[in-house]
């Protein structure tokens, strides 16, 4: 049975949101001197890449970028069995950095909690900020995003689908009703 899908953002819409977020990050951090981006797999890593390009377009600087797989830090492993574990790569020291965690969809907040635990094992960032493309509500932990592309109120049984092109650039965001 085909699910009913509503378009939230198209490719152009995503590009505009990412551009705005890039400006906001630079404004809030007064430039990009200690800035680092870390994408949360999967989805957040591609967005982080796009964000980095945008920041470079604006400030002319390529900020350090890394990606983290939070499977090993999940709080629900017992119920989920063995999920595939992806690579984590943070090729720069975190101490003293202003780290912007990037994810595609912010939901319960547990993924962000796991990502922060992972980061703490790597070092001691000066600050951790959060940029998300979509905030769909229903937080279960006291977590909030600093930079949001679009707020999309959803019901618990709905899904947000973020699709990517072959070159890993974001393609579209859709709301999927059951």
């Amino acid at each position: 049975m085909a699910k009913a899908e509503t378009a939230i953002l198209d490719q152009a819409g995503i590009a505009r949101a990412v551009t705005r977020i890039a400006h906001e990050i630079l404004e809030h951090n007064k430039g990009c001197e200690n800035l680092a981006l870390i994408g949360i797999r999967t989805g957040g890593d591609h967005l982080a890449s796009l964000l980095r390009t945008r920041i470079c377009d604006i400030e002319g600087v390529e900020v350090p970028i890394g990606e983290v797989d939070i499977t090993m830090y999940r709080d629900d492993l017992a119920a989920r069995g063995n999920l595939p574990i992806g690579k984590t790569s943070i090729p720069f020291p975190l101490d003293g950095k202003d780290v912007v965690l990037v994810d595609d969809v912010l939901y319960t907040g547990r993924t962000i909690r796991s990502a922060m635990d992972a980061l703490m094992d790597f070092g001691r960032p000066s600050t951790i900020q959060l940029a998300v493309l979509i905030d769909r509500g229903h937080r279960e932990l006291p977590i909030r995003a600093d930079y949001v592309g679009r707020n999309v109120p959803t019901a618990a049984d709905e899904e947000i689908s973020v699709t990517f092109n072959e070159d890993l650039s974001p393609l579209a965001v859709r709301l999927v009703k059951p």
Partner: protein
Amino acid sequence: MSFKHKHILGIEQMSKEDIEIILDTADAFKEINARDIKKVPTLRGKTIINAFFEASTRTRLSFEIAGKRLSADTVNISGSTSSVVKGETLEDTAKNIEAMAPDIIVIRHGHSGSPHYLAERVGCSVVNAGDGAHEHPSQALLDVMTMREHKDRIEGLEVAIIGDITHSRVVRSNIYCLSKMGAKVRLCGPGTMLPPGIEKLGNVKVYTDMRDAIKDVDVIMMLRIQMERQSNIMLPSLREYARFYGLNPTNVKLAKSDAIVMHPGPMNRGVEISSVVADGVQNVILDQVENGVAVRMALLYLVSGVESMQTS
């Protein structure tokens, strides 16, 4: 994910897909070993008992570190200090351990079939760290992972394994693993150490002359020749063994120029492998050890996932 094995008893029961899942997972865990804080909370609260009834330093250490890096509580018991000395049967020892609710028992034992014996009698997961002359699955997996890293593939590789084939569990596990992944195995050893029907276990050819066995191979794996075998009337002398079945700077040239040299350890320098080769650039023995921790972390993680799915 489709990894469904509750126990790791051997490579024999695994599919190619299972092996690939283990290797990919090990890749991800390997990154942790390079961090400053070498710990992730993945198996926090899980209890892993390392029951090593046969002496071992490197494998036990490897499993212990693997468990600890996953934040599990690991406890070691060894044969010489256990109740086994007081005559307790393996079954009673196992049941007593099980009453303390471990999630995983890692067992190394001198009797082939011991992990199977255990798996039939306890409810938790059983991981085979080496049983008699039967299998040593984590060793074969780390061997294959090391080969994959250095050669970018397993399929089509020619791998020579030289030594006491009859008594080697490393050989059997490697035969299964390499054959399932599409590699070809060449075995060589003294006539007294080639067991009947070994070629039936996989994609195997048996050679009696080491020079033929290692000609143009991609990987040379040397097995430890055990000094104790001498009393078994198997060899006239270690000197003769080293001469005809040992790897040295001269015969290593028969293999491909970029061939890698492996050894499950510990090495008998000057017997199965000369010091020059052991310390040479081709050898990846320390990579094997590093990969060993990652592979064992992967096995503990995967088996724990299956086990908790079954209990939840």
